[in-house]
């Protein structure tokens, strides 16, 4: 079965410290993986995506993620958190099973303390 699990529902960091948001997936097919961000009362915005090219993917606003096939993980990181990073983050897996299928994780809410 295909699934995506975000391991933390909430993460709290201090401004200027590193951010790690964890995502594991399960897929029998070659997946594409995405991270989206949602600020309060806004729609989702694409941060970055992995599509079977380089395993380390750089996105907007200093975020990056590494695809690790052996660990079936796609964790999102940022070296130094900013107050404006406070938002909800969604890990998403997409694949073809003869039809198009996308699965969203439940989300991780990131809090950034001053």
């Amino acid at each position: 079965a295909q699934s995506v699990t975000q391991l933390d529902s909430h993460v709290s960091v201090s401004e200027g410290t590193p951010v790690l948001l964890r995502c594991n997936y399960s897929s029998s097919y070659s997946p594409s993986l995405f991270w989206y961000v949602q600020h309060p009362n806004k729609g989702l915005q694409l941060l970055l995506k992995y599509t079977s090219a380089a395993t380390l993917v750089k996105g907007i606003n200093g975020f990056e993620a590494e695809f690790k096939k052996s660990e079936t993980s796609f964790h999102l990181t940022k070296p130094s958190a900013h107050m404006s990073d406070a938002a909800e983050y969604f890990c998403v897996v997409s694949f073809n099973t003869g039809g198009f299928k996308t699965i969203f994780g439940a989300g991780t809410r990131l809090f950034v303390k001053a």
Partner: protein
Amino acid sequence: DVKVTQSSRYLVKRTGEKVFLECVQDMDHENMFWYRQDPGLGLRLIYFSYDVKMKEKGDIPEGYSVSREKKERFSLILESASTNQTSMYLCASSLPEKRTSEQYFGPGTRLTVT
């Protein structure tokens, strides 16, 4: 920039009312989607459309219908609103079925059914 707009940001309706949520995209995308977002559940697909007048059920279609008469417009219809349909509704669009295509989201409509 891709733009996906939704007809209302906030909507309050009474139980039993017929509700229309409209979504318009300006990027000539073939695919359009309707999701509902509830805390702790991530995004769940209600319906999607891959062409004009074409539609397919998503994971939670019960109580909803859709209409796509023009390529740029995708409407979600609640035939008889119920309190358990109180939620955030997100519309999205994307290029044709490809594993690597990201989705572009509208700002969402927060619907309250009383």
